[in-house]
């Protein structure tokens, strides 16, 4: 088949260029001890890691109670393993992952900072982890009090008036904020159906707008990489509900005209939605509330150090100014003589976007983080994050110039000429970084920068780590010129070589099946 032929030829190229690499021994066809069979392939009929208490003698069984017509005969293909097998399976899988705890992980816009281990311990306290969401409020006062304290802390940090901890993630926070903007205008009798979004925005922004029923109007950032108030004024009309902007933007630069932009929006009755994805640059530096933001969503897994978990769970609180408070998701926290309770008495609320009270387990972790840093520590965090980004940018400048001349905040976006000079792409650079034990930056984003490398070092990495990253990037630059094939075929030292992602999409295999050859 065509795909296999292509693969074989790629393999030949790789082998010839890899002769100097020790890993070529494994690549030459020897059984690979580092791959882990699927659970289903390690199963044998009759094994089980379960220890379910036996039925009492004489007690009717479930099938007899419900009638066999409602019950399935079997869960065909389900795994059958002992506990030690399950443990070894997942422990071996864990070894195939990079993680922030192990590697430098400068993934831009994701804020992969150290996740304090105490926070997990706090979330696991039985009084928190074991608390059922339907527990009567008078028996859950500690949880509600914690939520109230976190709301107050986030309001102080952002300079906003009211906070909801309800949304499950940043993207859900965006949807929440946009639905609130819609409800706000609706309440005022205005049908505004457009939202302005800069060309540098994260993909979730336009997607959230569509879901919230808005048409997206794209604002162009200027040659220096930021939004001008003039451009926003040009796009403003009575149809515009809001501008949705990330600050610092995805080029890592502070939007210098943000206050004037807010003024222009407010003058025309539109709102400023500030995406707090890059809040790690702003702690004690500038408060969204002071910029004129009406709505801000936060990503607790970024700025407030809750673990990213391989892609969630996160939490995406929304903070608003007073005039938008009536529209926040309900229930909200309320207080009466009996203490904290859940308050459903908000008739203009947009309602809920999920079950129960929010991702409480993540809220505990974020609050624990805020306690550890305190007001001054948070401000220091942003300053060190900004220091690290500017340091990396400066040191890499000779090889990887910045996409903008503006000063960087917590992340820098770099570019390079290796595509032209050596036929080496940004993806190749990223893959080669893996061989140095470094997780690559975000690549090809923002879309306005050709071949972008978006680097967010965070405040918790040492100078030595940053220096070794710089050294790796410099080495890759030299390799790209002297031995481009080495970079183009990377990685060479991991359990797997370059993964063929296009193949996965061509013929999707999305589950294991017992009948498959």
């Amino acid at each position: 088949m065509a795909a296999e032929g292509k693969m074989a030829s790629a393999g030949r190229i790789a082998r010839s260029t890899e002769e100097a690499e020790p890993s070529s021994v494994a690549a030459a066809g020897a059984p690979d001890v580092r791959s882990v069979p699927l659970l289903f392939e390690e199963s044998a009929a009759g094994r089980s890691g379960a220890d379910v208490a036996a039925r009492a003698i004489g007690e009717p069984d479930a099938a007899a109670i419900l009638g066999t017509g409602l019950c399935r005969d079997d869960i065909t293909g389900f795994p059958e393993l002992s506990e030690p097998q399950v443990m070894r399976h997942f422990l071996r899988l864990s070894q195939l992952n990079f993680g922030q705890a192990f590697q430098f992980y400068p993934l831009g816009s994701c804020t992969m900072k150290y996740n304090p281990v105490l926070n997990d311990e706090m979330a696991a306290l039985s009084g928190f982890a074991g608390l059922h969401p339907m527990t009567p409020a008078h028996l859950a006062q500690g949880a509600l009090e914690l939520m109230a304290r976190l709301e107050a802390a986030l309001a102080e940090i952002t300079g906003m008036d009211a906070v909801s901890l309800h949304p499950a993630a940043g993207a859900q926070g965006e949807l929440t904020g946009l639905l609130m903007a819609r409800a706000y205008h609706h309440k005022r009798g205005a049908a505004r159906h457009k939202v302005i979004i800069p060309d540098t925005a994260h993909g979730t922004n336009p997607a959230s707008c569509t879901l919230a029923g808005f048409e997206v109007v794209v604002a162009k950032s200027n040659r220096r990489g930021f939004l001008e108030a003039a451009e926003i004024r040009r796009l403003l009309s009575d149809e515009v509900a809001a501008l949705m902007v990330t600050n610092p933007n995805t080029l890592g630069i502070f939007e210098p005209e943000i206050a004037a932009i807010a003024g222009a929006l407010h003058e025309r009755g539109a709102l400023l939605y500030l995406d707090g994805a890059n809040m790690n640059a702003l702690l004690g530096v500038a408060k969204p509330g002071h910029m004129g933001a009406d709505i801000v969503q936060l990503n607790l897994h970024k700025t407030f150090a809750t673990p990213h978990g391989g892609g969630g769970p996160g939490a995406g609180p929304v903070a608003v100014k007073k005039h938008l408070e009536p529209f926040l998701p309900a229930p909200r926290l309320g207080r009466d003589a009996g203490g904290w309770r859940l308050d459903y008495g908000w008739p203009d609320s947009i309602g809920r976007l999920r079950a129960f009270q929010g991702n409480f387990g993540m809220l505990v972790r974020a609050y624990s983080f805020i306690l550890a840093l305190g007001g001054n520590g948070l401000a220091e965090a942003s300053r060190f994050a900004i220091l690290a980004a500017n340091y990396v940018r400066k040191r890499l400048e000779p090889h990887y110039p910045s996409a903008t001349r503006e000063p960087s905040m917590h992340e820098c976006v770099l570019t390079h000429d290796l595509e032209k000079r050596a036929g080496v792409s940004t993806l190749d650079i990223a893959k080669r970084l893996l061989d140095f034990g470094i997780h690559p930056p975000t690549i090809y984003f923002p879309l306005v920068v050709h071949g972008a490398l978006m680097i967010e070092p965070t405040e918790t990495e040492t100078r030595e780590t940053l220096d070794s990253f710089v050294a790796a990037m410099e080495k890759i630059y030299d390799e790209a010129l002297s031995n481009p094939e080495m970079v183009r075929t990377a990685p060479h030292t991991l359990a797997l070589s370059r993964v063929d992602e296009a193949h996965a999409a061509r013929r999707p295999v999305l589950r294991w099946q017992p009948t498959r050859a």
Partner: protein
Amino acid sequence: MRFFAHTERDVRAMLDTIGARCLDDLIAHVPASLRAGAAINLAPGKNEAEIAAELGALAAQNTGASAFSSFLGFGAYRHHIPAAVRAITARAEFATSYTPYQPEASQGTTEAIFEFQTMITQLTGLEVANASMYDGASATAEAVLMAHRVAPKRTRVALSRALWPDYRETVRTYLSALENIEVVEVPFDPQSGAIDIAALERRAGERLLCAVIGYPNAFGIVEPLGEVAALTRRAGAIAVSATAEPLALGLLKPPGELGVDIAVGEGQSFGLAAQFGGPGVGFMAARMENLRQMPGRLVGETHDRFGRRAWCLTLATREQHIRRERATSNICTNHSLCALAATVYLAMMGRRGLRELASRNVELAHRAADALAAAGIRTRFDAPFFNEFVVNVGDPAAALARAERAGLLAGVALGGYWPELGSALLVSVTEMNTQSEFERLAGALAGGR
């Protein structure tokens, strides 16, 4: 600050490299008016012992978490969590990684997701499952949006009134911005507690977009899912099942086999603590023919340059980071670590264990119902139930107060959600409950008579 490594020398050297005099030089370009008021007025940082004391005190105030025998359910369930689940999800390789955009450095996460997807298809009897959603309620809303993309000309969404109130409200919120979509609720039969099929039939027609039904429903009732799916599909509409107690899928006929097109639900029962309501993990399964309309991440099988099997995120052209405003959803991260917990849990339970545990829940719930019946507390509905059931207790507030004094959280009063169930209590029973608790419960609830 113990999380920061920068010594004065480091900072000096880094500033010198940059060409700045001090840290505040680096933010001098931020308008002075903004910087002026930016100080964060919170208490100074605390040490570990102080934080543990503060949060420990708050946790201790949540007496509902530990000081009672609990019969609370209604969308979140108390099940034993094998130690293996915590041991694996605590691994920093899983916990501190992010979305597996670099498959070569993420084979642990991607293979586990592939296993999660596979087990969700096995449990639901469908062909494709995604890498997870936020929770059961938002997954239900996303299922309705997906149905809308599959059948864009249809306009009526029928929600069973016996769905959890949170799920119905979430669907309504997600749909609130869509024009021309009408949400109707289908009543339940007051005798059986199952959906009123005739009422659904009256709402089915060429406008029907989808019907969403709980399986089991919010009363614990095992709905006649096959009939509902057949009726819905006859109308050319999409049948959606929502499951909040996924353990039921270990024993009950799988939704796909009964004709359901999209099966969604909440996976919290699979190895996640209740955590006051989150994070749990939503799941979604569907038929391959609707794959391109599915939201959320998907992991697929592929190979590396040398032909070795590998896993990677795939079909991303459905997603927001590629498709932007034309994406199938705005969902970005999901609940990956929670999906991992569910994967470990299901691997531990296995083919026989999951069915045994599901059966055990049914048996114990029926023993509890029998114990209550013996004390004169009757079940409200007569359709078969899984591990929750509704009983009439007269005055639920008084009954709950009596139970609380006896050290019991007896259940959830339903009158606030369904006015006609003003005297009803939903009692949830799992393998964590014991026979002696059933007797105490019966005594407490009957105590006022």
